[in-house]
């Protein structure tokens, strides 16, 4: 399946819904969305990956790029993911130490609010 992207604001945090496969072909679209959100001054992001079926290192690179962009504005980029096959690539690359990874969008938002 291709990549479907959507986003909405919840409690002042922009939630990005991602569905499908994030790879070398589709990752540029996610990158463009994240850049667009930052350009529109959305610096608190949650990327919901619960419906992501495939993620490779190109997709990881886009997420890291997004994190760098929001951190440049003292922002944050948290992830929602409970799928073992997706979490595995975060573990292999050591990125579990870089991203906040949560079980649900509500958990991610609550954790972000608690840090403020």
């Amino acid at each position: 399946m291709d990549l479907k992207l959507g986003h909405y604001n919840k409690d002042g945090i922009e939630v990005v819904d991602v569905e499908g496969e994030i790879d070398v072909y589709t990752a540029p679209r996610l990158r463009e969305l994240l850049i667009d959100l930052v350009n529109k001054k959305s610096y608190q992001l949650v990327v919901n990956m619960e419906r992501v079926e495939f993620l490779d290192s190109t997709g990881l690179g886009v997420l890291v790029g997004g994190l760098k962009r929001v951190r440049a504005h003292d922002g944050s980029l948290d992830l929602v993911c409970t799928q073992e096959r997706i979490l595995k690539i975060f573990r292999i690359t050591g990125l579990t130490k870089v991203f906040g990874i949560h079980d649900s969008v509500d958990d991610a938002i609550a954790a972000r609010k608690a840090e403020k």
Partner: protein
Amino acid sequence: MPTVEVTFTPLPAHVRTARLVATAVARRSGVDESLLDEVRLAVGEACSRAVEAHRTHCPRTPIRVALTDDSERFEVVVTDAAPAEEMPAELASSSVAPEPVPLEGGGVVHQLPPGVGLAVISGLADDVRISPAGDGTSVAMSWKRRAE
């Protein structure tokens, strides 16, 4: 002789096709269902790396993926024709995950540092060999097959 051989022009859209073919052949070859996600990701990483290299150096030259199941193992060899670039020596011989990506400093990073794709492959496949092949590089990876 490979069981299945695929060649494709170095376009990102074709990487998904290569992944799907590799997963289908792995399933038919008796690779355990629990390992198919790893086959899919590792082959995707190897093909993505080859596509990036070809787009820089030889965009008209196809990439070759050979899938073989004539031994106790299912082997996938992705061969590119792009000049080999420097890779961390440890990645060529062992399973090593990179350090977490540093986030200090300025600039805009669109991709992870070179070698991360190979590190991912090393973390997924049972056995990985990276070696020169003609003008380019071959990435060979294999997984155990179920006893017939």
